[in-house]
């Protein structure tokens, strides 16, 4: 019965039967309208075009980080994607229902199913993912489930830190690591796991470690100097590992120094009851790893950053392992180690996402294959 016929019947019914039936069935009609809306091929087109336009805007009008903020990470854009998935589910599967399964339609079903599966997995992943950056100096161990272990992190709404098991140790950073003749540059020898069940592996750019669904990927590395404060007699009073930033110089060489990514800077030393504001820079020996010269600049301690143009109370240099005297104390970079920043990721939806990409591709190929066969049989 079409809608017109139904309306006619209702009209007739109104004049003839009592009590009068309500003419309007909001409860029946609304789900029906919603379904018709979601199952319309026009909506599919409109959504595909809308997403296309957003993508185009996101690479032309606004770009990069700005595009992420104003488009790709927003609720409305993601709502468009979700609507598209619901639309595929209603429109495509509503049409293909009860149709005879042929090679062509099978491929299409596979393709659209994988599309739906992929999006469900993406949504699931966005609720449960974790991504953090873990910074470790050689020999150091950090607890994986402690938020303080991470320099920064992002997590899905339902992610729980208890999902991150065990602890992570950086055993050693290896420079110029080679695998079968290929230079992988930096490799990290790391150990992850609970005591008694540790996994140790050398990770590098194309090889990461997977421990219980959590991935450890190399990201960046740098030097860390063990700075030791001693008294006149040579007795060690305090020591701390100080991570150094690599700052690119105008001549393309690197300077390794305390401070931030933006520039060199001083820090309170010793950390608990500071005597000095100290700035340390390191020039690696071009031949011998982990040796070279260390430059010290010392100011009497005061709070806050010391302006770079202010003359230090004492300044000088000493090779790694040697002492430099500053007032009543001596300072030394006792040893140079490396620190590394690792990317720690947990993406529970990823296997489904990646697998459905292949299934979708297979679906497209099957459809095409079916079309070619049909074409050859002279029916296409």
């Amino acid at each position, binding site marked *: 019965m079409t809608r017109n016929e139904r309306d006619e019947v209702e009209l007739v019914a109104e004049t003839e039967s009592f009590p009068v039936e309500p003419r309007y069935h909001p409860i029946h009609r609304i789900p029906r309208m919603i379904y018709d809306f979601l199952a319309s*091929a026009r909506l599919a*087109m409109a959504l595909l075009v809308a997403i296309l336009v957003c993508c185009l805007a996101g690479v032309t009008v606004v770009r990069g980080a700005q595009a992420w903020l104003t488009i790709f990470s927003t609720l409305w854009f993601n709502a468009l994607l979700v609507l598209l998935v619901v639309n595929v589910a209603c429109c495509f599967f509503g049409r293909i229902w009860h149709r005879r399964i042929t090679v062509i339609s099978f491929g299409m079903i596979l393709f659209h199913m994988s599309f739906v599966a992929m999006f469900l997995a993406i949504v699931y992943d966005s609720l449960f993912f974790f991504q953090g950056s873990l910074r470790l100096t050689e020999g150091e161990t950090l607890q994986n489930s402690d938020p303080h272990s991470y320099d920064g992190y992002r997590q899905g709404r339902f992610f729980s830190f208890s999902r991150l098991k065990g602890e992570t140790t950086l055993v050693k950073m290896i420079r110029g690591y080679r695998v079968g003749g290929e230079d992988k*540059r930096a490799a990290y020898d790391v150990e992850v796991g609970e005591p008694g069940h540790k996994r140790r592996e050398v990770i590098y750019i*194309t090889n990461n470690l997977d421990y219980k669904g959590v991935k450890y990927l190399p990201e960046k590395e740098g030097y860390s100097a063990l700075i030791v404060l001693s008294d006149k007699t040579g007795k060690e009073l305090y020591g701390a590992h100080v991570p150094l930033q690599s700052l690119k110089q105008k001549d393309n060489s690197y300077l390794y120094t305390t401070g931030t990514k933006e520039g060199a800077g001083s820090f309170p030393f010793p950390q608990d009851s500071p005597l000095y504001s100290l700035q340390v820079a390191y020039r690696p020996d071009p031949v011998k790893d982990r040796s070279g010269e260390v430059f010290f600049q010392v100011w009497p301690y005061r709070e806050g950053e010391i302006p770079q143009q202010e003359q230090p109370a004492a300044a000088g240099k000493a090779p790694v392992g040697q002492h430099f005297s500053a007032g009543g104390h001596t300072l030394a970079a006792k040893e140079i180690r490396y620190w590394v920043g690792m990317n720690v990721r947990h993406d529970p939806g990823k296997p489904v996402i990646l697998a459905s990409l292949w299934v979708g*591709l297979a679906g497209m190929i099957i459809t095409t294959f079916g079309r070619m066969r049909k074409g050859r049989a002279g029916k296409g």
Partner: protein
Amino acid sequence: MKSELVCFWLAVALYGVSTFSYIFGLIARYDKLYLVGLLSALAGFLPHTASIGLRWAASGVEPFITISESITFGVFMAVLLFLVFQLTVKKVPPLGVLVMPTSFVLLGWAGTLIKEVATSLNPALQSAWLWVHIVGATTGFASVLIAAGLGLMYLMKEKDSAGIADRLPELSVLDTQSYRFVAGGFIMYGLMIVSGAYWSNTVKGNYWAWDPVEVWSLVSWLIYGIYLHLRVTFGWRGSKLAWYSLIALVVMIVSYWGIPFSLETFHSGFRIDHS
């Protein structure tokens, strides 16, 4: 001049000859020029291949890292597919009217961007995925270029401009052929995206980051996804789709080599600074 460059510019010159033969063949309604066009495309293809091979052999770096290499490789695939199609499957004599000028201009443009020293990709990034990714992207481009060429043939036959009608197969054949190339290109773009996601996953641990190049590739895929739906679900045929394929081609060229390369460096997310 290095032999690699000699080969390169010889190829550009021969594609230029081919371009002019096709265009004059069309204007002057002189069919023999189509054959000249095809033969000079074939002749240009040899030094084109040689220049890629020489550069690759000399540097040992995959020949598609910088923008000029990328364009050169894309045009290589396009001409290869065009020649294979013309010499084996289907003869559409004036097809080169769109394919060869596009190839000529793109290759000439690539020539102005050549860098003497090969830029090496961070060796760490090398992986078989890279090959799948690039072959997907370039054959995808090659297919949609030919689809657009067939679309143009369709429109010209429909109007019978330059008395071209009897040189061309039936309209319906052109229409179907063009659609098949779009479908093939769509699969290849799919392959490009899938392998890119896998590659990104092994290197960066994520599959998708809305990086500009990723979004551009999604744009190409959506454009042809829309094409397929217009045809399959809305029943579009013929001249509307032919126009669509021509406009989409322009977007393809811009999205490949126009904007992403000039504004952002190649896959900015893949630049890995090791201090």
